């Protein structure tokens, strides 16, 4: 497979290789952008995880099919966001058609989750912090210590006078709660 010109680095090199159909470049892109795109699509789909996953799958296929070279990361990310929004919208349309079809056979129909018109990838982060602030001070301190200050579980256990295992299980529970409360905020109209 031809490699990108030597002068190109970072996103420019990656996108040049993607545009040429380089499989290694797609693996690299997938590893770098999968999580970020999923988080963006969670916001676009207003916290509907199933819809976000469906849109993510479609987004990645579209990137593989239509990738083109970009000179900088910002332009590439803007393009990715546009592709992701379109994929989410198209998935929504499919679901609407399917729901209409199902409605003709039965009274049941599931309303389509509205797509946030100007969803921004920073919104999820903002909501997360908003939810974190609402946690009890001890829980918040634990989460902040682990994820914002980079403390290890052993260090936190030492500070709190608890066993490592109990701190780990507490972190699992707190993460789940934080996830649910963030998704609930995203689902609010």
């Amino acid at each position, binding site marked *: 497979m031809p490699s990108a010109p030597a002068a190109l680095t970072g996103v420019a090199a990656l996108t040049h290789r993607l545009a040429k159909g380089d499989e290694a470049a*797609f693996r690299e892109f*997938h590893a770098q952008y999968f999580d970020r795109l999923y*988080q963006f699509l*969670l916001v676009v789909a207003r916290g509907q995880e199933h819809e976000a*996953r469906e849109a993510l799958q479609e987004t990645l*296929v579209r990137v593989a099919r239509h990738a083109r070279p970009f000179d900088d990361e910002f332009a590439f990310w803007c393009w990715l966001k546009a592709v992701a929004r379109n994929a989410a919208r198209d998935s929504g349309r499919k679901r609407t058609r399917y729901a209409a079809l199902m409605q003709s056979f039965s009274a049941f129909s599931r309303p389509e989750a509205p797509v946030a018109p100007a969803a921004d990838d920073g919104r999820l982060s903002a909501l997360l912090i908003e939810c974190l602030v609402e946690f009890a001070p001890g829980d918040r301190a634990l989460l902040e210590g682990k*994820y914002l200050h980079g403390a290890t579980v052993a260090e936190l256990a030492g500070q709190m006078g608890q066993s490592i295992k109990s701190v780990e299980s507490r972190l699992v529970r707190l*993460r789940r709660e934080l996830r649910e409360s963030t998704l609930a905020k995203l689902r609010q109209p």
Partner: protein
Amino acid sequence: MKNPEHKELLREIFCDEELQSLREESLACGLSTVRSRRRNHTLRMAALAAVPMVVIGVIGLRSGWYVIPPQPIASVTAPVDSRLAGVKIYPAVSMADAPQVTIISDEELFALYKDQPVGLIGEPGKQRLVVYDEPAVR
């Protein structure tokens, strides 16, 4: 923009093991799309490269470049007449190949070569016109 700590927390919270199957499935699907894109690109390039050759071929057919001039028969096993030795003999052109052919009689043919010694040789219907380079020996 997210700071790195938030990024880590977001990843821990939203991108857990549940997402692993989607991660693998989407990678496989994407790679297959990349392969098919590359294959289509190769086919398109080959088709593009073939276009000028097809165009040249079509132009050649239309302008008649393809018509091969009649070649003299390589060897005549037994000259009909010793005086014909060294005379180039061309194969008769098929009537079907000639779009406009006026049929003339032997006399009319000889009249066209008034000042040249010519002769018709062969069986009637398969005769060949022979033009002598040297004056006929009488």
